[in-house]
């Protein structure tokens, strides 16, 4: 079993209204040092797989076909031991 963490965020030029609202709220609470806030989504899944490279490949495929809307979002895949792959 391999544990895979997928982090999904909006692309930089895509407006993240939730992030903006959170930033405004933090400012209201006095955290004036807060700059941009970006929200995202974390998906954790276990794969019945022993090879980390193959696990990474399969997770990337899952991101492309379902988990991520690549028109507006980007993703990072992390295997539990810390190996990373961005797209």
């Amino acid at each position, binding site marked *: 079993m391999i544990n895979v963490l997928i982090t999904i965020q909006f692309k930089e030029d*895509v407006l993240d*209204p939730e992030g903006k609202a959170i930033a405004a709220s933090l400012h209201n609470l006095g955290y004036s040092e807060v700059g941009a806030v970006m929200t995202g989504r974390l998906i954790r899944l276990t794969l019945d797989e022993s090879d980390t490279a193959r696990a990474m490949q399969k997770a990337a495929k899952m991101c492309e076909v379902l*988990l991520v809307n690549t028109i507006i979002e980007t993703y990072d895949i992390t295997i539990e031991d810390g190996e990373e792959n961005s797209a």
Partner: protein
Amino acid sequence: MPSIAVIRFPGSNCDRDIITGVASITGTKPSAIWYKDTDIARHDLIILPGGFSFGDYLRGGAIAARAPIMDEIQDHVWRGGYVLGICNGFQILTESELLPGALMRNVGLKYVCRDVVIKAHHADDGLLSAFKDGQSFRMPVAHNEGNYYADEETLARLQDKGQIAFTYTAGIGGDKHIDANPNGAIEDIAGIVSENGRVLGMMPHPERNLDPIHGGGGQDGRQLLKNLIEAVAP
């Protein structure tokens, strides 16, 4: 009259309204097709109704867009068939890439449920052929993710090829209090069509404006649906 079918996904909830609406125009009840059935070949127009298909988990329309019936709908589109997606149906069409762009969370972060006024754009072919340029319609929107987004290149292509079907506009007549854009959609886009004009996605709900008891005159939704049906079978 054209043969029309409405696809039902788990969580669709405007299916009955659109079936009733279409039947009141054509005199024939459209077929209701459960998403696990895949025989849609004999229909001219496939309608993807509003609702919360599969609970809108992951993203609005994302899971429905990957259901096997969408392969059949893709084939139907390749055969030159017509498709109308309303609200969640529009989200399913962008998620399945039958239409470009994406529908994001409303800019105000609120679920928006109110009347809007939209302006139609005419095209010589396809589903917009029975609309007059600038023809206005008032009807409700009800959505959380209706904020249409497309990157600059896609947007330029939509504008170039006349694929922007409907845009939000300020109120007409006695309805000047209606703000134009309810969700922050880029270029006030309320609906778009495919390049061949035969696949249309729109956020407003014509099926909720069919009768005077629906308020706001109650005939604009009916007129809009009439125009679409007329385009399918002139």
